[in-house]
């Protein structure tokens, strides 16, 4: 079916808006980014000449300004990935299991409550947690002082490890509902007959989870881990607004530092090279995770 010249014209007409917009706003910026990264390129004065791979070299040579900026951002971001991915995955799985075991009528209510913070923008979330955790007049300190847990206010935003803890709690509250929804949907797919069989065998809750539930949801779990790693790698809004990168730049994320090199230092060439290296690192980590989960399946 579907033959003839008019049919071909239709097919081209229908696909072309997407293709044109994709080329214009994705392929062209990508190509421009690679091109700019090979030049000494300023935001204000434009192209100042071809430098080959010098931008990449100076980012990857210890001791240079850009090396410090990139590596510090990378280190902070990787630290956040390491501390945030386990709770974001495990707590969301726990919440999904709780929802799964609730009486049917109550499920939608609790599911909505646990998921609602996902509809709030990162800036509003930051405004709320900035004042919940503020060292001076923040609500959390007021409560802790009034019940006698602390005497002096804790400087949540200006001291480590409290600053990372604040960013972590904020991120968990904001995004955990999404992972939970993915787990809930995966748990819904698990065959109820398998549970009944396990019940007949007298299996406890934990052994039921290990032997029945986990094999059925592990693919989704791997997907969630990968999605969460990507999201944590893109850390920006929370640290930009809540801690401002502090204390002593310890929560400056990689994206924040790339932004600094582009706008603060006016180096679009360096910034583009940093973004490309960051993209490559993320792709390597993702491929590695796919490979690990695939290998485990064999």
């Amino acid at each position, binding site marked *: *079916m*579907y033959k003839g010249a008019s049919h*071909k014209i239709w*097919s081209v007409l*229908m*696909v072309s*808006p*997407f293709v044109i*917009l994709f080329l*214009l*706003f*994705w*392929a062209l*910026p*990508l190509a421009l*980014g690679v091109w700019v990264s090979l030049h000494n390129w300023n*935001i204000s004065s434009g192209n100042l000449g071809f430098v080959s791979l010098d931008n990449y070299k100076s980012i990857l040579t210890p001791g240079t300004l850009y090396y410090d900026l990139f590596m510090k951002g990378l280190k902070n971001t990787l630290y956040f990935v390491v501390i945030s991915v386990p709770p974001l995955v495990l707590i969301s799985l726990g919440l999904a299991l*709780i929802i799964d*075991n609730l*009486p049917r009528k*109550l499920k939608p209510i*609790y*599911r*909505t409550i*646990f998921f609602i*913070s*996902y509809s*709030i*923008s990162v*800036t*509003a979330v*930051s*405004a*709320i947690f*900035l*004042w*919940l955790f503020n060292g*001076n*007049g923040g*609500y959390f300190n*007021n409560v802790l002082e*009034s019940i006698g847990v602390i005497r002096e206010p804790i400087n949540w935003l200006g001291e480590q490890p409290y600053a990372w803890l604040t960013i972590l709690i904020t991120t968990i*509250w904001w995004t955990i509902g999404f992972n939970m*929804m*993915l787990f809930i*949907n995966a748990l819904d*797919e698990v065959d109820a007959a398998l549970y009944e069989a396990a019940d007949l065998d007298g299996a406890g809750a934990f052994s039921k989870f290990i032997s029945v539930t986990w094999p059925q949801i592990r*693919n989704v779990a791997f997907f969630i881990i990968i999605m969460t790693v990507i999201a944590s790698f*893109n850390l*920006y*809004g929370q640290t*930009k607004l809540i801690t401002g990168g502090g204390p002593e730049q310890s929560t400056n994320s990689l*994206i924040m530092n*790339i932004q600094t090199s582009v706008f603060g230092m006016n180096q679009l060439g360096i910034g*583009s090279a940093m*973004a*490309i290296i*960051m993209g490559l690192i*993320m*792709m390597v980590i993702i491929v590695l995770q796919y490979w690990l989960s695939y290998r485990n399946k064999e």
Partner: protein
Amino acid sequence: MKRSTRKSLPIIIVATIIAILFLLPLVWMVFTSFKTLSESMASSNILPSAWTMENYVSVFSSVSEAPIFRWLFNTALITAVGTFLVVMIDVLAAYSLARLNVPGKKVILGMVFAALAIPGIVTLFPAFYMFKEAGLLDTYVPLILPYTASTMGVFLMYNFLISFPKDLEEAAYIDGASQWQILYHVIFPTIKPVAMTLGVITFLGIYNDFLWPSLVTNSNDMKTITLGIATLIQGANFVNPAKMMASTVIATIPGIVVFLIANKYIVKSVTNTGIK
């Protein structure tokens, strides 16, 4: 398998405690917006001792410096136009790719998959530079059009269509239906759940975006509500939690309303993201 209420009681209690913890920041936000400045900074009570509207009055009267309703309008415009464009463009493209054997199909699909694998940060700053050189900063153009380059929608709907039988379309074609009639009467109803899903994901994506709008807007009047709240955090409002929360309440309501209305589709959308 039915559980008795008595057996479910412990898990209901646990779930309720967690639910209270989850709602606490939102409840605190709402109540704080009705507190006086001194109480908002000193009190450990969640409820205001004396309710006041002064924070909202102050937000409404300072719209010349912080045009919060203009930001809400911008956000409504950008999310509505952006979401509509993305869904329409992606439905047409996915239909053409999945059903019409369009010339260059393999190349286009290759680009779609490649784009999914490459992190967005790589194109962000060059895209900003393009708009800067084109003199389009601080207009609606960069706040809407770049979202249409996302390939996720084409990917979702292409996958949906190729796994969906084409009997209906063939029957309609044999009956002499035109391409538009097939699209309108067969494809649109078929693809609607996935299109709604894509719409919800796209809406939340545009609504929540912070970094991109902060790059391409300069003037206060062109900000989105998400960006506007960031401006308030970094500006004078920072010293006044009560007024800050009044602004945040206003900024948060549209998202929560859309969320509650679209709840059904969001639940589906998460399932539909193509993983099983």
